[in-house]
């Protein structure tokens, strides 16, 4: 290994995920990849190429059939259900295309939600959630429910929630898929700012221009395999 090269935060080695079916579906087929700390990695590919499966395994929501995946040197592919939950809570933050906010909760409650499972006291949860909302420019909307927020605002609430436990990596699955281009640009700028502050980001998008604008590298998948790993620019 090159001594001057950035240290790999995420190491993926020969990752395979096969979904059982009458004809087993090979969603990922021997993916090997390293993501340096502080990188902004874009993942693209057509529908069914395996990009969401890769992100779900990275996020600890799914487990590989074979191969290994490690974050900061710790293999997550070997973790049991409880440790995997702790990994999801403390090490990664996830942002989804459909925001996945709880409609009955206010913006503040949604952001504070992960802290509930970390055993953080109620007052502390409120304080930290308010800070996170302020960081994404939504301090004034803390008492609003998701239905009272625009799509962009909802996604920023989701980002604030993903960051509330100060994760090592932010995983974003088509975060701008439900947004208009202006709002999408704002969200991506928010992500870029977070990346500039040192947060490692792995983002799925089918919008190639946006990926090229914000990513340091783009991985293209087809049929569960990496067909191209394009370096765009150096990470700061």
């Amino acid at each position, binding site marked *: 290994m090159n001594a001057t090269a950035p240290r790999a935060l995420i190491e993926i080695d020969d990752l395979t995920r096969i979904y059982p079916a009458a004809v087993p579906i090979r969603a990922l087929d021997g993916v090997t990849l390293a993501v340096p700390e502080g990188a902004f990695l874009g993942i693209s590919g057509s529908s069914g190429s395996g990009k969401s499966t890769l992100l779900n395994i990275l*996020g600890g929501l799914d487990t590989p059939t074979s191969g290994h995946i490690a974050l900061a040197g710790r293999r997550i592919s070997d973790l049991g259900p*409880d440790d995997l939950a702790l990994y999801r809570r403390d090490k990664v933050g996830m942002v989804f295309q459909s925001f*996945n906010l709880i409609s009955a909760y206010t913006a503040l409650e949604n952001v504070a939600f992960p802290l509930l*499972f970390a*055993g953080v006291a109620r007052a502390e949860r409120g304080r930290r959630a308010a800070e996170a909302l302020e960081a994404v420019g939504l301090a004034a909307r803390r008492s609003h429910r998701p239905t009272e927020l625009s799509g962009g605002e909802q996604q920023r609430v989701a980002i604030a929630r993903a960051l509330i436990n100060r994760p090592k990596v932010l995983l974003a699955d088509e975060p701008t898929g439900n947004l208009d281009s202006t709002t999408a640009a704002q969200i991506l700028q928010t992500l870029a700012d977070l990346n500039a502050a040192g947060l490692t980001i792995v983002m799925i998008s089918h919008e190639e221009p946006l990926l090229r604008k914000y990513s340091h590298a783009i991985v293209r998948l087809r049929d569960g395999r990496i067909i191209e790993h394009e370096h765009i620019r150096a990470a700061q």
Partner: protein
Amino acid sequence: MRLSDHIHQSLSNLWKKKLRTFLTTAGVVIGIAALFSMLAFGKGMQKNITDRFTRLDLFRYITVFGPSEGPRRPRGPRGHRFGDSRQTAPSVPPLDDSRLAEIAKLPGVQAVFPEVRFPAVVRRDDNERFTLAQVVSPELAASGLVTFLAGGPYTHADPNAIIVSDSILRDLGLTDPQAAVGQSITIATITLNGPGSPGFNPLDFIGAFTGDLGDALPFAQKEYALTIAGVAERMGVGMASPLRSDVFIAPQAADGMQKMNLTNVRDLFKSPDQLQAYSTVSIRLVSAEHVDTVTAAVEAWGYRTFAIADEIDEIKTAFVLMDMFLAAIGMIALLVASLGIVNTMVMATLERYREIGIMKAVGARNSDVRRIFFFESGAIGLLGGLLGVTSGWLTSLLINRIVNYYLAAKGIPYTEYFNFPVWLWLASIAFAIAISLAAGLYPAIRAAKTDPIKALRHD
């Protein structure tokens, strides 16, 4: 997750679905109220009876039966004694005065009372009732075994006094026990050319009923005027008490009466010597601790005995069975309610499918998810339990009042038919929670097993 967060979270989630929570909780409330009331009724019955036994001091009494008397059924762990002794009945000495004197000498025996009862008709104006009058000494009448509603026991100075039960009083058309004291009533004894009389033939007695003797019935009545000294609460405790009649007459009054000293058809076939013996004798002990030793001594002579102290285990078993039966009725309502909880919680897991996915995505462990749903079903149980025991208590009070109001018109004194021991309150609430948790088990496990990827994609 913190305990306080679990509680807040569960109450908050239930509050969001107010109507469904109300309806589900209402099912638990009804079930627990039914269970609580039923068991309170069972406990009330138990308390009334044991209190009555204790108040009457019946645990200090042993009933001894003569050679051909006594209960035929075997009973309790000592059940063999009746059956065995019946087989050896011919060798058992009669329960006469000399035997009573020997019993009185046994350690722990305070007094011995022979049971003498005779058939009589109690009459006042046009009202009358047939009964078996019992000869009771003034000491026994004043022993505390009799609960007087009015008046009191007679003394040796009242040769024509009588004690009647409130039941007899009502049959005689007297409703006010206080007003009845001092009034005169008639006792008509029944005489028969029978046992002990020259030329008695039991077949004549039977012929009186078959009509073979025409109008020549072997019965006659002798009337005696007696004054009511006291009105007693009807005892209704059977063999447990030496007092087993609705009419008590002092020995000096009974001695002057012409009467048949027989209480059942078997007495007709006894010889005059046998009729001199008592069929039943009651022993009063210094304390209930002597029951076993005195019973053993009396049974050693071949007599059969009955002591309520011996029966207490059987009585307790009977009450347990009654409690179980009553609880089973209440349980039916609670089981239906638990199905409601299962339904509510399954609905909650379906409605919050996506939310469960979000919980898992942000770091909830399976156990966290399971506990969230557990706490919700537990909260339904706690709320249902608290409201259930409260409404069960209020309903029981209402029923008690209505029943007493109805029975008061029949002259029956006020009784608490329900008893609410502290453990019943706590156990009912705990049971409501336990049932609710059991009902929430499947939905909670189902929620915990949710695949977060599928749940997050769910619309």
